[in-house]
């Protein structure tokens, strides 16, 4: 959905073309789950699919990050802010630490981006899902809950997650204000695994529904 919505939006595209050099990097193969229903029928879906948008100096070192898939509006203003910071300071190492340290302190003071019972419950749920469910159920739920799209109303509806932005941003400000400057490649584990809670693994998992164990055997009466 990043392709068809956010990075196809006119304002976003124009801003990138006029001010940035855009590049994409794959952090892992896409994770796909295939459920073989027999008779040549199958259900196929993508599991997960988080993204991160990093802003780098010309030497390739990160000075800001927009975590997760955001609406074109949020992405546009995130890009404008990053650009303004770069033009004002040159994104020198010390300026990056000061800027994110200031923003982190401001968020802390205002209580923005704090974890809350809802977020904790969701994270706990995701952790439990990973640990306790069988892999097929885990992947089926992951496919259904994927932000890649919900089908309906004669087309595909994009699902964004605006609720997580402050929560993620606060973690990003903390990381960029306390750790040394580095490339997106060197940041990816902390951003994807630490902030976005996304496993950095991919590939196709195929499930044959004929091999599933029954829940219980109902004995027929004689």
């Amino acid at each position, binding site marked *: 959905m990043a392709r068809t919505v956010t990075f196809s939006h006119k304002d976003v595209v124009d801003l990138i073309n006029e001010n940035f050099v855009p590049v994409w990097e794959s952090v892992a193969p896409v994770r796909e789950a295939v459920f073989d229903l027999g008779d040549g029928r199958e259900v196929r879906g993508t599991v997960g699919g988080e993204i991160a948008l990093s802003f780098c100096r010309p030497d*390739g070192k990160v000075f800001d990050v927009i975590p997760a898939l955001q609406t074109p509006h949020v992405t546009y203003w995130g890009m404008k802010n990053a650009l303004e910071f770069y033009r004002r300071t040159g994104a020198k190492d010390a300026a990056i630490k000061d800027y994110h340290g200031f923003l982190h302190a401001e968020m802390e003071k205002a209580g923005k981006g704090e974890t809350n019972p809802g977020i904790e419950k969701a994270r706990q749920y995701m952790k439990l899902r990973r640990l306790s469910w069988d892999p097929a159920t885990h992947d089926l739920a992951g496919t259904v809950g994927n932000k890649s799209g919900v089908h309906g109303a004669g087309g595909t509806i994009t699902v964004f997650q605006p609720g997580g932005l402050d929560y993620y941003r606060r973690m990003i400000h903390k990381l960029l204000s306390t750790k040394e400057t580095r490339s997106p490649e060197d940041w990816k584990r902390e951003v994807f695994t630490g902030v976005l809670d996304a496993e950095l693994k991919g590939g196709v998992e195929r499930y044959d529904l004929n091999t599933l164990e029954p829940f219980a055997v109902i004995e027929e009466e004689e």
Partner: protein
Amino acid sequence: MRNMRRLGTLLIAGAALLSSGSGGEAQDPAPQDRVLTAIERLRGEAEGAKEAIQQLVNLGETALPKLRAAAGTDPVFLKRVKTVISRITGQWGSDGRLIWKRSMEEARKSNVKGRPILVLQLFGKFDEEFC
């Protein structure tokens, strides 16, 4: 035998010059004509279309305006056009206005104006259908 081969090569070169009439220019159609010819081949059988896809990808950004304007109702043809645009721009489903670099190294080398670099990190490949 060696001299015979040389003579053969000279004769072929001479024939090519005579048929072109003006130093071989007609042998090399203008890029936009090549784009149109290749786009037409996308409507045909699979093997020829595969070659045309590669030819258009090699032509790069020059091919984008004509590809964007390519019209038709055949879903196979339209998917082939989409494939070419995706490979040139680096973005599946792109309308061709944004061209992505494929690596940080490429981005840094091409960055002659000293612009900030925007890095999209994702699972899978941005120029393929499923990511």
